[in-house]
């Protein structure tokens, strides 16, 4: 590098580095102002807090939870307030949410288990295996009838039932309401093409075929995607939420049933009519969302709280954009819909802790699940991270930077019926409106996807081997690379596979444990 240019280059680099550091320093001082003074001492408060009459030592325990970019530090104002409020000394090992299960597997395998662990997927095989092998406390007895834990009692009841393993509660569920996702559709396109909002699967097919063949966004091209196959939502219309039994009373996994094949055939008909994107199976969730946002796709399935954001985003390309939610569509054997389990993972307590500590931890979580503490646990400190606007928490600037799902990750909190319906960005009356739309789901017999709950070791083992092949066959059946007969024959082949047959009685037993006969 020539001498003078090198000097210039060094200078620019140093300048950039200094400005970055300056930005850091100034932001840090801003945060200090917001956070209050960071105490010089470390974090074990053994002094008696003046609020409690009887001085009780704080419960000391460690945990592990999901990290999303930021997390409250042990010496942050928020954390100190929390520890003070609940009289605990809670140290969390933060582990990135992406790849969290791998780290959890590693931690479980190494035997160095923290006292409390956030379990992101209570049905993940390694977590089930850990529970059955006795790595976690069986909480069923301690919980009893919840008379000692009034806040636990108020949690979504389906959560306590569905998070059991072999009839026992190993996990304290992280709950939410059952209302979650719906089908989003471009209402303005329906209006332009003079179509009525569909209420049945058949009408939906008609509508979507018309949209795909027209030019609703007026860009002069017939390039609109109608729908992207989503078995989570659509397959239920064909009866996949009801258990299908074999001749011995065992339950066949829904993917192998003719109900599911009916769903696939439905999608095939849509594909033939040009209503489905050519390469639908390779769209990631984000890409599907972006298709909808940029006006290339008429529908997609997402949590209902995104509706507000979707309207903002679609308006960028088309100011007339209007989004409607379709919580359910009637089908031949049921409704296409998504009825959430009511919980998303839970907390497990390591068997290595003493019974006394285990009970202390239960009390702690019971306290955090007090509905009064919901905002604190989810959104941070009132006035600092959020303010109440129209009775609804709204994030401040600092809140937007610091608060994310890491905040509630180490806790249990009260069930918010509309956790997945309210948008933190939208005004309250907008959210109330969305709530009404989603409550339509209560009017039908909403059913959870039982295969998110039922447990079968044989199935887990086999499915991990054939999952990719199955998805590949399904995609080919929809796109026409194979015929529906071949797909059904493939399903039949699996149904007759002895390794898979082993799962049927296991599913039946599991079903009985959860739902009774």
């Amino acid at each position: 590098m020539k001498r003078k240019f090198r000097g210039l280059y060094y200078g620019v680099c140093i300048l950039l580095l200094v400005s970055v550091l300056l930005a850091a320093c100034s932001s840090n001082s801003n945060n200090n102002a917001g956070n209050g003074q960071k105490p010089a001492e470390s974090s074990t408060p053994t002094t008696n807090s003046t609020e409690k009459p009887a001085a009780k030592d704080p419960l000391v325990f460690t945990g592990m939870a999901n990290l999303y970019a930021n997390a409250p530090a042990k010496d942050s104002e928020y954390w100190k307030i929390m520890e003070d409020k609940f009289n605990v000394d809670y140290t969390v090992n933060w582990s990135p949410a992406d790849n969290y299960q791998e780290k959890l597997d590693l931690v479980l395998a190494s035997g160095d288990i923290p006292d409390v662990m956030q379990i992101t997927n209570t049905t993940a095989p390694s977590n089930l295996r850990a529970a059955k092998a006795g790595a976690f406390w069986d909480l069923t007895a301690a919980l009893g009838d919840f008379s000692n834990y009034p806040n636990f009692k108020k949690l979504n009841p389906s959560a306590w039932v569905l998070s059991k393993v072999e009839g026992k509660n190993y996990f304290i569920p992280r709950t939410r309401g059952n209302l979650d996702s719906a089908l989003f559709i471009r209402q303005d396109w329906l209006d332009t093409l003079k179509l009525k909002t569909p209420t049945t699967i058949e009408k939906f097919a008609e509508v979507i075929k018309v949209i795909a063949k027209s030019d609703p966004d007026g860009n002069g091209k017939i390039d609109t995607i109608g729908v992207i196959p989503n078995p989570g939502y659509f397959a239920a219309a064909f009866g996949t939420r009801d258990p299908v039994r074999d001749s011995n009373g065992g339950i066949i996994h829904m993917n192998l049933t003719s109900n599911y094949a009916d769903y696939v055939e439905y999608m095939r008909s849509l594909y033939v009519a040009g209503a489905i994107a050519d390469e639908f199976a390779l769209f990631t969730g984000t890409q599907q969302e972006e298709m909808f946002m940029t006006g290339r796709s008429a529908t997609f399935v997402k949590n209902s709280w995104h509706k507000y954001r979707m309207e903002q985003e679609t308006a960028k390309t088309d100011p007339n954009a209007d989004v409607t939610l379709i919580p359910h569509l009637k089908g031949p054997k049921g409704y296409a819909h998504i009825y959430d389990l009511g919980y998303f993972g839970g907390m497990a307590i390591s068997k290595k802790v003493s019974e006394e500590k285990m009970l202390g931890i239960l009390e702690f979580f019971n306290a955090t699940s007090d509905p009064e503490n919901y905002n604190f646990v989810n959104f941070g400190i009132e006035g600092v991270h959020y303010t109440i606007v129209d009775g609804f928490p709204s994030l401040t600037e600092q809140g937007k930077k610091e608060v994310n799902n890491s905040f509630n990750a180490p806790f249990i909190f009260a069930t918010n019926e509309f956790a997945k319906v309210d948008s933190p960005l939208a005004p309250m009356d907008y959210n109330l409106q969305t709530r009404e739309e989603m409550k339509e789901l209560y009017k039908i017999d909403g059913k959870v996807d039982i295969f998110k709950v039922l447990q079968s070791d044989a199935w887990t083992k086999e499915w991990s081997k054939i999952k990719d092949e199955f998805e590949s066959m399904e995609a080919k059946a929809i796109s026409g690379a194979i015929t529906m007969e071949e797909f059904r024959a493939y399903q039949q082949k699996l149904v007759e596979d002895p390794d898979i047959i082993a799962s049927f009685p296991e599913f039946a037993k599991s079903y009985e444990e959860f739902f009774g006969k």
Partner: protein
Amino acid sequence: MKSKGISVADIIIYIAVGLISLISVAPFIYVISISLTDPSVYVPYKLYLIPEKLSLTSYSYILSTPSFITALKNTIIITVIGTALNIAFTFTMAYGLTKKELPHRGLIMGIVIFTLLFSAGIVPNYLLVKNLGLMNSYWALILPALTNSWMLIIAKSFIDSLPVELEESARMDGCNEIGIFFRIIMPLSKASIATLTLFFAVFHWNTYFTALVYMNDADKQTLQVYVKSLLIDASTSGAGDTGLADLLNLPSETVRMATVVLAMAPIMAVYPFVQRYFIKGVMLGSIKG
């Protein structure tokens, strides 16, 4: 040198290199463009070559996020210390292994080749780090990576290509191997040192999985872990649809692209510093006389 004017070969070379450069840089222009676009007008799947509405909001947002700065700081420290140690451990051992008659050389090379091809997997390494008390510290990322077989073999190959006469003349001057190493080998290996410095630095800079496994504090995150958490895709985050995918405040694409740029920029800036070591030869006149 020769100034015969431009030949056909030259033209072809210019065109080829030019095309390759263009293809290499095009996606960057796209990424940088998006990062400089105002979020209120950004729309996915448009070909942005120039920002539609120039705005630094995405950058200022990230730079004012304490987590980003901390992650950057962590990565810089690990990279600088780690790379320095890497060079030390790698070149010393590589030089030693160039001595073909060294007793037990076969055994040592055997170990090197074996570790090149076989690895014990994550669990034993995790336990080792844990038992050494390195968890949650920078050393957990530096010590287990002090050197590796691949770099060793490359360094050894470079040292082998240095002329033997150099050592012999130094030996005659009464130097032992340690002296030779510091006074002859290292100064003459600038090209390979620069190259391996670059490789090691980039390796440390891009650490993701080991950082994920060994760090337990949010403020010990490395840059790539932080960046990845911003780029999480709703459906590929391994845990399916357990609600994990719902980030309360998913940053917009402009912010994510700005993060990507900021995460790459510092390490890319290192390149021009080392580039000069492998542009011109360094060998003039060292053997003569």
